[in-house]
């Protein structure tokens, strides 16, 4: 990757700045009901670190680098697999009521009348 793409510190700073704004805006209006699943979901997203771990391990040239690289891939894939499993479990619970919350709120009177 190094041969066809070079990001100097200023280009890097721009990428970081834009990504940070994106992250801030994406989470902006999240309802409290989703705080825990979203923390878990974003925890899954930074699991992409495993890609870096694989790069480092494949390029390892001695036992020390191999061992530490092994640890990187091991920990990173734990982050990915565990983060995904837990987030899916949390979010599947929201599936049964696919109705939008504000939409459902209008129907409250009807709900009680039925009961």
């Amino acid at each position, binding site marked *: 990757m190094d041969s066809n793409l070079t990001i100097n510190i200023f280009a890097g700073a721009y990428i970081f700045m834009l990504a940070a704004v994106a992250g801030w805006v994406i989470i902006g*209006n999240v309802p409290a009901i989703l705080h825990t699943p979203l923390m878990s979901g974003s925890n899954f997203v930074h699991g992409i670190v495993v*890609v*870096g771990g694989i790069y*480092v391990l494949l390029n390892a040239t001695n036992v020390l680098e191999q061992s530490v690289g092994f640890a*990187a891939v091991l920990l990173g894939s734990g982050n990915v*697999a565990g983060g995904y499993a837990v987030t899916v479990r949390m979010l599947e619970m929201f599936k049964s009521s696919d109705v939008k919350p504000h939409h459902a709120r209008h129907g409250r009177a009807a709900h009680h009348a039925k009961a």
Partner: protein
Amino acid sequence: MTSDMLTTISQVVTAVTGFVAALLLMYGLKRMSSPATAASGIRVAGAGMLAAVIASFLYFFSVGADAKPLVFFNLGLAGLAMAIGGSIAWWSGKTVKMTAMPQMVAIYNGMGGGAAASIAAVELFGNRADGRTQLIVTLFGALIGAISFSGSLIAWAKLQRVLKVPLQFAGQQILNGAVMVAILAVGASIVVAVAGGPQFLPLPGLICLFFGCALAFGILMTLPIGGADMPVVISIYNAATGVAVGLEGYVLQNPALMIAGMVVGAAGTLLTLLMAKAMNRSVFNVLFKHFGASKKHKRGAIAGSEKPVQASDAAIDMRYAKSVIIVPGYGLAVSQGQQKLYDFVKMLVAAKVSVKFAIHPVAGRMPGQMDVLLAEAGVPYDMIFQLADINDQFATTDVALVIGANDVVNPAARTDKSSPIYGMPILNADKAKKVYVVKRTPGGKGYSGVVNGLFYDPNCFMVYGDASAVLGKMIEAVKGLGAAAA
């Protein structure tokens, strides 16, 4: 096909996949932030992740000349590491109880931080940084990743109750400050040593010292923080891991890592601020002014006594009430009583009682945990209300039923300036005409270690027992009523 072509093709494929993956991860996160689309959001993000991970094996074709002889062995190692780490985490993520979710998030987050720190370690030991800027970025990523790693492990140990008390001692802040100064000094001497300047230790020794201090700092910083603040702490470390991943992404010149990492860094920071706001704690206070540090608070001001009642009496009372608001807490989660609670609620609704759930932003051990729990039991959205939407309704409600919640209904937060939880927004359960509290034992304190004056109020009655068992009795009592009437 020449090996040069293969290298070029694999580089283009990984670059394009990285681009697509970054987009899918962000889009997935966006979908996850709305209840209607959340369940599909994680799958979108998962697809992006899967593509990025598979494509990363194409690095096989473009490894440096030094690594060529070892590349098949390294490929095997990578497969093995993924199989071990992935399967253990997958299995534990699938089997863990819902109540243990917060500490699992802490563990997985710590693993991400550890991975970022490990990547930095390889770069440092191999002296691979391309110039001083990259070296400094590597060091910062290493520092943040290592702190997130050891700090998250301590957070896990606390929530898992392996570590039970906040460890506080005099001069703690000074020690932490000293360790941080040491880290920066060692980091600076690494930069000097790499540039060919003087070194007081061989470079590998300096690097080990750097990581040792960073890990120690994560432990020292997290140890004194009380359990009630742990969700905020996990959220901070989540954001920190994101930043560490982003920084190491820059070092590896991988824009997908940079973007995904920094998006999480920002999103996690905002999430942290939202949580801290809900608890009326500033992030600074969470980290540096610890709960429970003030032991002066006494129970002296509280008059009256706890008045126990039978579960069946409370149930029948609610059956004939006009309106009930239920305040669930960690105790409900622990006893796994959510299904029984909803069964009981359905009986009340059938008897034309208006039932609502009131969720405190930090009920349970993590914001939103109660929403997840109630969703699991099948409680519809339209019965669940957040603090701001329902707090005024307690005053006009017949019964407030508090199940396994404590601090979030403690009136001391409103009135008692000496209380450590003073100023935290609480649910005004005490304003209901009558309050029933389901609680395991008499006289207990909340997670924050504060006595709850509500339990001694004249309009408050205690139902002692495990939440699930109590709810079982309540269901029986209302059922029996129906049988007697028929």
